[in-house]
C-alpha cells in the first residue's frame, strides 16, 4: 500500500488544514502534541458506524449488533498488531491515556503496593503519569521517587542505580516528553526495571504518533496511549497490559459488560478484555481508531519518521535564529519534533496570542507538566509541535510570526 511521500496529498487527507481563518489567513497547526487533526478516512469511518450499523457493543445478536462487534474486534486487532501485543485480550479500550494510567495505578497498585514500596517516576512526566501514582501512594503508603534529569532534559541514567532497588515496584516513564520532546531510552529502562523485579509502565501518548513500539521486544508490562493524538477520535484510548497481570488484578470500574454473573451480594468478573471495559465504551471512536492506525500504517512509519526528522532539523535550525529564544530539551539526537521555548521579555500568553493572529496555532502554559516547569524555573512556555502533515513552509511561517510577535511586543527596539 505504501506509496511515495507526497506532503500535499497527505495534507489534503486532513480537511481542517485547508480551512481559511476569519482573517483570511491559512491555518498553521502546530499543536498536534495536544491533539492531532483527523484524516478524512477516520471521520468517514465514524460516520459510517453511526449511519450504517450503529448499536451498543457486545450486547445484540441482531445484525447491527453483530456488525458493531465485528468492527470493534477488527479495530482491537489493529491495535494489537501495532503494538505487537501477544493477544487481543491484552488490549483494553479506555477513554484515553489518563484513564489507562489510572487503571494501572488504581487496580494494580491497590492490590500490590504496600508501605515502603517505591514507585519511580521523573520530573518530565505528564501529570497523568504523576497524579494517579500520588493518589495510590497516599493510600498504600508507597513512596514516590523521581529519577533526576540531566541539565539538557534527559533522564540521568547514571543515577539510575541509586534510584532503582529491590523496593522499587513500578518504573513508569513516558516514551517521549510532551514538553521537552525528549525520547527516552525504553530498552535500557526496561532492562533496569526487570533486573530489580519492578513493573515497567510506559506512557506512549506522545511518542506513538511518531514511531512504533514493540511491546514484546521492550518487555513492557503496561502501556497507555490516546487515540486523539494518533489522528484518531477523542474519547478513545488504549491500555495494554500483559495478560497475566490483567488476569491477576481486580477490575477498576464496576458495571455493565465487565461481569460474568451478578448476584445480590457479589459478582464475578468477565474475562479479558471485558473485565476492564465497564459500561458502554466509545463505540464509533474505538472503531475509527482502527482506521487511524490503518492510515499511518499505509503512509509508512519509516517515511513518517524521515519526514518528521527533516522537519525537526529545519525547525531547530530556524528557531535558533530568533533573538532571545530559549529552547528547552536536548539536541536533535535525543528528541522528536516538539519545541517548547520562551522568548526573553515576552510572556508565553502574549506569544501564543500574537502567533494566533498569523494563523499559527501553538500551545502556551505548563502543558500538564508543572513539576518540569518548576524544575526549569519558569511558570509557562510556548510549545510548537509538529506532526506528519506539517511542512517546512510552516516552520517559515512560525519564524515570521515570531518576528511579528517581537515587533508587536517592542522587543526589536
Amino acid at each position, binding site marked *: 500500500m505504501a506509496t511515495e511521500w507526497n506532503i500535499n496529498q497527505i495534507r489534503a487527507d486532513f480537511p481542517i488544514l485547508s480551512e481559511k481563518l476569519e482573517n483570511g489567513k491559512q491555518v498553521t497547526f502546530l499543536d498536534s502534541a495536544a491533539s492531532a487533526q483527523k484524516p478524512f478516512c477516520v471521520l468517514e469511518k465514524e460516520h459510517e458506524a453511526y449511519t450504517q450499523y450503529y448499536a451498543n457493543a457486545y450486547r445484540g445478536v441482531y445484525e447491527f449488533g453483530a456488525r458493531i462487534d465485528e468492527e470493534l474486534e477488527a479495530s482491537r486487532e489493529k491495535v494489537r498488531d501495532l503494538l505487537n501485543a501477544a493477544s487481543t485480550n491484552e488490549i483494553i479500550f479506555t477513554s484515553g491515556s489518563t484513564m489507562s494510567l489510572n487503571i494501572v495505578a488504581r487496580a494494580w497498585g491497590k492490590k500490590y503496593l504496600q508501605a515502603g514500596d517505591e514507585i519511580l517516576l521523573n520530573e518530565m512526566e505528564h501529570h497523568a503519569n504523576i497524579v494517579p501514582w500520588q493518589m495510590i501512594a497516599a493510600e498504600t503508603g508507597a513512596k514516590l521517587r523521581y529519577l533526576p534529569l540531566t541539565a539538557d532534559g534527559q533522564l540521568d541514567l547514571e543515577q539510575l542505580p541509586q534510584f532503582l532497588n529491590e523496593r522499587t515496584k513500578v518504573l513508569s516513564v513516558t516514551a517521549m516528553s510532551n514538553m521537552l520532546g525528549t525520547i527516552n531510552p525504553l530498552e535500557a529502562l526496561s532492562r533496569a526495571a526487570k533486573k530489580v523485579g519492578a513493573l515497567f509502565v510506559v506512557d506512549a501518548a506522545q511518542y506513538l504518533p511518531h514511531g512504533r513500539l514493540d511491546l514484546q521486544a521492550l518487555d513492557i508490562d503496561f502501556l497507555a496511549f490516546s487515540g486523539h493524538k494518533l489522528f484518531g477520535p477523542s474519547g478513545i484510548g488504549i491500555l495494554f497490559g500483559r495478560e497475566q497481570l490483567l488476569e491477576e488484578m481486580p477490575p477498576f470500574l464496576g458495571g455493565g459488560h465487565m461481569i460474568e454473573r451478578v448476584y445480590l451480594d457479589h459478582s464475578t468478573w468477565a474475562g479479558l478484555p471485558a473485565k476492564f471495559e465497564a459500561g458502554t465504551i466509545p463505540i464509533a471512536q474505538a472503531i475509527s481508531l482502527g482506521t487511524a492506525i490503518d492510515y499511518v500504517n499505509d503512509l509508512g512509519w519509516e517515511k513518517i519518521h524521515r519526514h518528521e526528522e527533516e522537519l525537526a532539523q529545519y525547525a531547530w535550525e530556524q528557531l535558533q535564529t530568533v533573538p532571545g529564544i530559549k529552547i528547552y530539551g536536548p539536541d536533535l539526537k535525543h528528541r522528536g519534533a516538539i519545541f517548547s521555548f520562551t522568548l526573553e521579555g*515576552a510572556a508565553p500568553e502574549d506569544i501564543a496570542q500574537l502567533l494566533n493572529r498569523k494563523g499559527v496555532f501553538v500551545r502556551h502554559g505548563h502543558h500538564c507538566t508543572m513539576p518540569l516547569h518548576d524544575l526549569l524555573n519558569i511558570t509557562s512556555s510556548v510549545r510548537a509541535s509538529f506532526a506528519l502533515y506539517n511542512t517546512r513552509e510552516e516552520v517559515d511561517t512560525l519564524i515570521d510570526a515570531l518576528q511579528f510577535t517581537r515587533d508587536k511586543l517592542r522587543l526589536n527596539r
Partner: protein
Amino acid sequence: MSTVTLDEIYEDFEDLQDWEARCDYLIDLGFELPEFPANLKTEENRVHGCQSMVWLTAELNKAHDPPVMEIQADSDAMIVKGLIGVILAIYSGQPPEKVIETDVEEIFARLGLTRHLSSARRNGLFGMVKRIRQLAVEQMS
C-alpha cells in the same frame, strides 16, 4: 491613575475596524500603563485565575471628596496589561459605591471583549474585577 478614560476607549475602539487593530490598541495601552512598584509584586497582591502573572492593589484615597478607589495593577503579559488599562479606566478614581454598582459585563460586551477573549482570559479578567469589588466592599464596611 489611568491616563485614558472609558469614553476615550469607546471612541478609539469605534475608529478601529477589526479586532486585530483593537488588540494592537490594547497592547499600546499596556505599554502606557503607569509603572507598578516592584515591592508590591507580592503573593498577597497576586490575582489568581489568570494564565499570566497579575498583581493588583486598591487603596481608598481619603484626600479626595468623596473618597475614591485608587487601583494599581501589573502583569507580565502585555495583552493582559492592556486589559488592566481598561479595568483602570472603568474603576480607578471611582468611589467604592460606584465600583460595586458598575455593570462591567455590559462594558466588556460593548468593547467586544466578551466575544474575542478566550474563556481562560475572560476568567482572568473577571478575577481582577472580583478582587476590585471585594476591596471596594471592604472599604465600605
